[in-house]
């Protein structure tokens, strides 16, 4: 196996203490080697983000994850604040800014609405990948590689067992990604959920 990639999870939830789903997800990867959870709301309760610290963290990791609950079809304010301050002009884009080049990035998103409601014919009228378009463009601007999102949807209907399964699946996704699978394997997948399911299916028989 070639060298393992380090993963940086930029976690942003303003009311994490009340979130069952995100607790399950983060518990699954607790203590996992090579994964750093950067709990933004806990570290910057006043939104005063330490840009230098964040940039150093970025440099020390090869896979970046924006992990947040979906509010009003976008990320919580902290993620926007983080992008505004940390992805500085000249550091990650434009003249000489290529510090994040070829790092991989994706979003882990939890939403109350089900996957069906996020479709052209559904209540929310747009698919999740469509709603992520600004993030994807930001990644492109920073010359990073955009991977499909990992999602937990319809959260109100999830039982504790299902949540535990999601926790385990999230862990598997991260562990597999750290082993740097060839990028072409993600072709055709809208969600990392489907990719990891196929990977597991192929392994089983």
């Amino acid at each position: 196996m070639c060298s393992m990639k380090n993963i940086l999870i930029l976690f942003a939830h303003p009311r994490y203490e009340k979130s069952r789903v995100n607790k399950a997800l983060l518990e699954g990867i607790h203590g996992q080697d090579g994964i750093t959870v950067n709990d933004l709301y806990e570290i910057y309760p006043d939104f005063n983000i330490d840009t230098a610290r964040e940039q150093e963290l970025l440099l020390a990791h090869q896979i970046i994850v924006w992990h947040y609950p979906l509010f009003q079809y976008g990320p919580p304010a902290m993620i926007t604040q983080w992008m505004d301050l940390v992805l500085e002009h000249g550091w990650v884009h434009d003249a000489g800014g290529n510090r994040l080049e070829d790092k991989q990035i994706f979003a882990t998103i939890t939403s109350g609405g089900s996957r069906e409601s996020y479709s052209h014919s559904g209540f929310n009228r747009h698919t999740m990948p469509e709603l992520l378009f600004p993030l994807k463009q930001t990644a492109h601007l920073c010359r990073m590689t955009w991977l499909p999102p990992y999602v937990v949807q319809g959260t109100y209907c999830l039982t504790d067992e299902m949540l535990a399964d999601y926790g385990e699946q999230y862990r598997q996704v991260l562990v597999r990604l750290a082993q740097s699978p060839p990028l072409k394997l993600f072709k055709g997948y809208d969600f990392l959920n489907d990719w990891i399911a196929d990977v597991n299916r192929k392994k089983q028989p």
Partner: protein
Amino acid sequence: MTDSILGQAVVYLAAALICVPLAKRLGMGSVLGYLLAGILIGPFCLGFVGHEGEGIMHFAEFGVVMMLFLIGLELEPAHFWRMRSSILGLGSLQFVLTTLVLTGGLLLLGLGWRGALAAGLALSMSSTAIVLQSLKEKGLGSSQAGSASFAVLLFQDIAVIPILALLPFLAIQAGSGAVHGETPAFLDGLPVWVKAGSIFFAVAAVIIMGRYIVVPFLRIITKASVRELSVAAALLIIVSIAFLMKLVGLSPALGAFLAGVLLANSEFRHELESDIEPFKGLLLGLFFIAVGASINFRLLSDSPVTILSLVMGIIVLKAAVLFAAGKLFRLSFDQNSIFALGLSQVGEFAFVLFAFINRLGIIGGDWIDTLMAVTAISMTMTPLLLMMNERLVLPRFGTREQVEKEADFIDTEHAVIIAGFGSFGSTLGRFLRANGVQATILDNDSDQVDLLRKMGFKVFYGDATRLDILHSAGAGSARILFIAIDSPPTVSNLVETVKKHFPKLQIMARAGNNLDAHELLDLGVNHIYRGFLDTSVRAGVDVLTSLGYRRYSATRAGQNFMKYDEAAIHHLAPYRHDASDYISNFREQIRLQEQLLASDRASIHSQNDRAWDTIGPVTAAEESGLHPDGQEKGV
């Protein structure tokens, strides 16, 4: 009519109530007011109290006893250790030099060397009561002059113990072992070494009792948790020590001081302090009145030149020695002049020592009478001298009220004036300066002022409530005046002055507590910053976080609480005067606290982040399709 205790009480209290406010009005300070009251009712003026105030003097000395107990209480070993160089260095230097100079002077006047030495020692004492009270009133307690004065006074207070122990030796050397004078203590007539030994024995007894009897006794008392009992216990401690000391012929004040020092390290320190404080204030006032009443004006009128020249001579010598000592310890001119003039009187311990010297027969009765009169008169001089220093000397020779402008210096008026540059004001000033906003500063601590000027601040020195200083500080053209002065009366005064003369100047102010904040609201100041609010809420946020709360939620709860608390204080302000105009400050403080607590319960703050709450389904909106996904919940 004034023979009965009640009659006397009426005379004293009435005199104090008339004279003290008058004196304060004239800018003379309460000490001078009390002294004047004493002179007025004394045997040489109105004659309401007779016998040269002697009878009351005994009673009033109790004020001094209590004050020394309180000073002793202040003296934690750690505190003493921090001040060791100024207490031992400055204190001993001043004391030895003054004694030498005064003894030399008395020798020249024809006293024998023993008498001269004894009197010199007594005259070297300064008045703790007058100095501390005067400095406190002027707000100079924590200035350099204040702490140097405190150190010197402390050294003197401690020095009285060995002096009292050693005086008998001077007496027997003088060959007059016979003791005369007032009530003899039961030790009188014993050989001198027994007397000296007994004094040390009594001191040791106080030390042992303090340690092994008083503290356990206080523990039992406080268990009963009846407030009067602890007051009674505090008084009992002082009275019984005074009694014991009287018994062995020692000064009660000294015993109380010792007891105070012993209890300084106990857990009852603060309680004892607050129990005794009111008694102390009243009795000290009484003491000053008694000093005023005991001035022997007959002696003064018989030989005014002798007495007055003695007073002037002693004051000049003492002040000169103090000034030199202060110089050596690097006090600046302003601070040194306050220090030297402040301590230039002869103190209340001189009365004690003179009485003792008289009983030992070291000096003749005529001399004692004269010196007692000199002592009392010199005490009345102090407030006058300090006032003259403040009005006449310092403005001319001290720290300037403003720096003279150089010819080509274009004076840019600053938009912000900060009045009071203590820890609050200075933090504010530093923050503004760090962000490129220069402020003009008003402060009345000359050392602070000099330092700030060196660092390039534009500082005006003096009383911020004075109209001319406000004018020259640019109050006419500034936009904001920030008041960060500690004393609430000064703040109100300043607000009124500014509202009247500079109506366009926006006033922002710091308030020390909720009550002060209400006072400011009453005065029409709407920008009020309570010094404790942000810090305590921030501390609360950290406490919550340490208990495991999410930092962001705790921070938002803190922000909400502050917003709510600010609103509450404005909301409650109009109702403040409804209940009664007569409730005391303390009760009002409690009532305010109650109102705040009640409205705390009524409004559930920090619950307005419902948008992020993820408990309970919201899919109803999705299913019904009634409104857009405004309630979408991330989970």
